[in-house]
């Protein structure tokens, strides 16, 4: 219903008033008059409960946020707000929030803290950072920042401080998929789900792991445009259950499926020869390469009937170019993740869907500009990042957390002894938690800026309370969502900051000021925004009015007459650069390691109430997801003597955890699953501490050979019933 419709309806409601039964006539009428509209003040913002930044309207009364509503004008999120978005209040008003700077008093992880004043905290952070720089060179300090609009200031700080060592959360998430598509198309695409007629989803769970606008558009495409959805997932997820077809694919065999699809499309000449000729490079090599990967071969590997694979390939091709292999985000899966996702990218290449309706879209112009600065040069410094040259194609600005961690532990090639962390929680998100603890213990001084006492903060030396997204002034951010929009958002404070919280920018600015680096932070956020929007000067005003600014840039046909940013200047089915680097130029299928007898492959996944480790302590969301369970197939449970609800121990080569078993047919016999974010070490996360099991305590820390992306699906676990 549109707002205008609604005004009409509500007008009628008001006019009709509320009648009430005759018997109590007058009294009822007087008592139950139409409720007055709340004395709300509506303020625009953008959600920060996950990375999507959905537009919202905060309803504020007397300086208190009463409700967060979707901004109907915000196209990227299609005018909606999910459960997490609604639970933003519970994050801001969480009694467990950090309230003032804390200095560690006892051992790391012991939980003894002393409250200190901000001045002292800033002095200490600056002094310790100076010491680290002097003693270990600027690269002796590591900086880690999560996905946040202030994170760029951490990157800026690291650069002016002189450290190349900056890691983001992304190497624990999606970089191998980005690598694969970047190395095929020259850029990372946005799937045009809304206009697609046929979607194969593998390694993504879009109805539970919400991504705007894809999750919403997928339903619209299916329900209103007749789009067909085929899901491959070892779990019967909500996405699987809402699909037209679902196959519980054997984990680690997606590449075999994709190569067989390519085999059928090429073998039956189902592609558009002109398009392939004009736009792609390497069809001959690919044709030769996929000859061996027949549907029959893939059927053996994947456990999906050969006829189904061939039929899906034909249906995909028939719907092309408005069909796709959904790129997905769960690429942190195997040690050949980049190559697995290259197979996805190649099938899309054969479908000819690049830059066309219902296919994969190129990035649109948003209009924001960077704010450049000249960082000082430090003669006494290391030559490169600590994780450099350990994998061939890491993303410099994201780094590889796992490679960095191993390098820090080994002092290879140099020591790192300082760590500054903002709004990311590697203790809670990186596999093999014990190693992260070891890494913490290696540090001379760790500073964490966050709104909550995450496990990472729990092991730090200095913990600084930051402002939530509804309390602070943020720089502008450019967003893109499929065909929905290329837009700009900003955040202004909705309420006064609670407690002694400060924004990360202010903290950086203060620390820089005490380190003679003040000139690099010599501006306000407002001034920064002006510089960002210098080519779209109307944007700031439009955002004040609508909560969002749209750039009317082109959606389709961006690549008409344009060359691709690859070596061949075409879509590289066959990757020449990989060949030069000694990597497989075409993805070569290697079967996943067989699940050892009496063990299970542990897989991870998301649901709509969980953002990694940051929402399990949210009082509202906790009512939906009070704990995590271990999904276990009934046949496996029977052979282990485990009943639904039993306490079980899950152990791998790196750790063990206990949680309740959920015996369900929604998972393959050889696979188990649990949600992330539970059983925090930090007792200051009262709902998630000691509750359920921590998945990262159990996950082993293998990584993708090309990008250093964590491979989270390579851990085998033993499950035993816990005898009370």
């Amino acid at each position: 219903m549109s707002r205008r419709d609604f005004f009409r309806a509500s007008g009628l409601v008001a006019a009709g008033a509320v009648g009430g039964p005759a018997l109590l006539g007058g009294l009822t009428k007087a008592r139950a008059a139409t409720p007055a509209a709340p004395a709300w003040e509506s303020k625009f913002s953008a959600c920060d409960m996950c990375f999507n930044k959905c537009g919202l309207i905060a309803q504020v009364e007397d300086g208190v946020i009463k409700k967060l509503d979707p901004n109907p004008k915000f196209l990227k999120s299609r005018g909606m707000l999910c459960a997490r978005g609604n639970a933003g209040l519970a994050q801001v008003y969480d009694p467990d929030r950090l309230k003032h700077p804390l200095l560690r008093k006892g051992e790391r992880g012991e939980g003894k803290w002393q409250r200190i004043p901000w001045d002292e905290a800033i002095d200490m952070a600056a002094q310790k950072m100076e010491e680290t720089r002097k003693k270990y060179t600027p690269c002796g300090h590591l900086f880690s920042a999560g996905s946040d609009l202030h994170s760029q200031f951490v990157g800026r700080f690291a650069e002016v401080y002189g450290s190349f060592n900056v890691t983001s959360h992304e190497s624990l998430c999606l970089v191998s998929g980005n690598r694969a598509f970047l190395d095929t198309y020259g850029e990372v695409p946005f799937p045009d789900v809304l206009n697609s007629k046929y979607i194969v989803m593998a390694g993504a769970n879009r109805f539970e792991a919400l991504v705007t606008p894809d999750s919403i558009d997928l339903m619209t495409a299916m329900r209103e445009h007749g789009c067909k959805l085929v899901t491959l997932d070892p779990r019967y997820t909500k996405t699987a259950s809402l699909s037209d077809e679902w196959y519980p694919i054997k984990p680690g065999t997606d590449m075999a499926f994709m190569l067989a699809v390519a085999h059928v499309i090429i073998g039956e000449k189902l592609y558009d020869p002109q398009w392939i000729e004009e736009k792609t490079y390497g069809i001959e090599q690919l044709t030769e390469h996929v000859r061996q990967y027949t549907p029959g071969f893939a059927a053996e590997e994947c456990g999906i009937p050969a006829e189904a694979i061939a039929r899906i390939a034909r249906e995909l091709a028939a719907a092309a170019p408005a069909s796709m292999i959904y790129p997905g985000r769960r690429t942190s899966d195997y040690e050949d993740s980049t190559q697995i996702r290259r197979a996805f990218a190649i099938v899309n290449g054969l479908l000819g869907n690049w830059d066309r309706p219902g296919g994969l879209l190129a990035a649109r112009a948003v209009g924001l500009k960077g704010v450049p600065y000249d960082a000082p040069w430090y003669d006494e410094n290391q030559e490169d990042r600590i994780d450099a040259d350990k994998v061939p194609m890491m993303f410099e600005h994201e780094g590889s957390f796992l490679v960095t961690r191993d390098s820090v532990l080994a002092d290879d090639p140099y020591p790192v002894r300082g760590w500054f962390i903002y709004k990311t929680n590697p203790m809670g998100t990186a596999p093999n938690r014990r190693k992260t603890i070891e890494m913490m213990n290696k540090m001379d001084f760790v500073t964490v800026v966050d709104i909550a006492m995450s496990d990472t903060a729990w092991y730090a030396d200095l913990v600084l309370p930051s402002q939530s997204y509804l309390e602070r002034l943020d720089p502008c951010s450019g967003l893109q969502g499929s065909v929905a929009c290329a837009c700009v958002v900003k955040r202004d404070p909705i309420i006064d900051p609670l407690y002694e919280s400060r924004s990360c920018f202010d903290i950086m600015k203060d620390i820089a000021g005490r380190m003679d680096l003040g000139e690099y932070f010599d501006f306000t956020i407002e001034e920064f925004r002006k510089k960002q929007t210098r080519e779209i000067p109307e944007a700031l005003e439009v955002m004040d009015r609508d909560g969002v600014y749209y750039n009317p840039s082109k959606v389709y046909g961006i690549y008409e007459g344009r060359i691709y940013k690859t070596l061949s200047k075409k879509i590289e089915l066959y990757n020449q650069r990989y060949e030069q680097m000694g990597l497989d130029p075409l993805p070569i299928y290697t079967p996943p390691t067989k699940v050892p007898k009496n063990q299970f492959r542990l897989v991870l996944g998301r649901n709509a109430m969980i953002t990694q480790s940051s929402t399990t302590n949210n009082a509202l969301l906790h009512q939906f997801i009070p704990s995590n369970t271990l999904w276990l197939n009934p046949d496996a449970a029977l052979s282990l003597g485990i009943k639904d609800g039993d306490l079980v121990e899950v152990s791998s080569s790196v750790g063990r955890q206990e949680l309740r078993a959920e015996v369900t047919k929604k998972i393959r016999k050889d696979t188990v699953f649990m949600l992330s974010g539970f059983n925090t070490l930090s007792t200051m996360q009262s709902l998630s501490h000691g509750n359920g099991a921590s998945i990262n305590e159990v996950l082993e820390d293998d990584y993708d050979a090309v990008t250093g992306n964590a491979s989270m699906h390579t851990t085998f676990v033993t499950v035993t019933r816990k005898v009370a």
Partner: protein
Amino acid sequence: MAQQLAMVIDAAKCIDCKGCVAACKVANDVPTGQWRNWIKPTVEEVPIPGLLKSKPKFQPGACMHCENPTCVDACPTGATYKDKETGEVVINNALCIGCGNCIPSCPYDARFRNEVTRKADKCNYCPERRAAGLPPACVDTCPTKARVFGDINDPESAAGILYRKNKDRLTRISARTDTKPNMFYVGDPGHGDWGGEAVVPASMVAMKQSAPLIKGIVGLSGLGVLAMLGRQLLVGSDAEHKEDSDA
């Protein structure tokens, strides 16, 4: 024609994200562990891999503001009534004594006793929000807009349009007591076997059906109870209410 506020729901669009449930809890200050609305999953066997039967798997619901609301019959004070102008089933908080009669009388389990207010509680289509020109919280926030709300008698409202367009295939939850709920599902609503039977105290039914004189007496007694309630609120004692918690 008077209005009939209603929800028209396309259950096949629901992705069970719980956005509507979270929004409702915040908008209406619903106490921890209690719910005014819900999404019921279809309890189903995991299918044989391959083609799936295209059936709704998740069914959004809440108070259905019925045509024949059994909860109204069960209410001794007239606190619960069907608004003639809007078609809503309303709880007048000032008259509700928290007796709990209405709770089993709802075949859809839409009512509960609010642990904080100790009165009957259920979906009220967010009147404060509507007064401010906003849709009910659940409808506003729903990602796939599976929930559509409005006056189905208004052919131009979004709900009215959807209602008319699907007139031939609109379905209601089939409960053992058919109260003619004003929650319409487009096509298959998903599993529909959860609607129970209205349990209304016989005395209440008798009273409601007898002469207006008796109704008057009921009304007066309601006033008396109201006075008692007022006194109770003034005196205020937690201990006295302990026995309420299992209701």
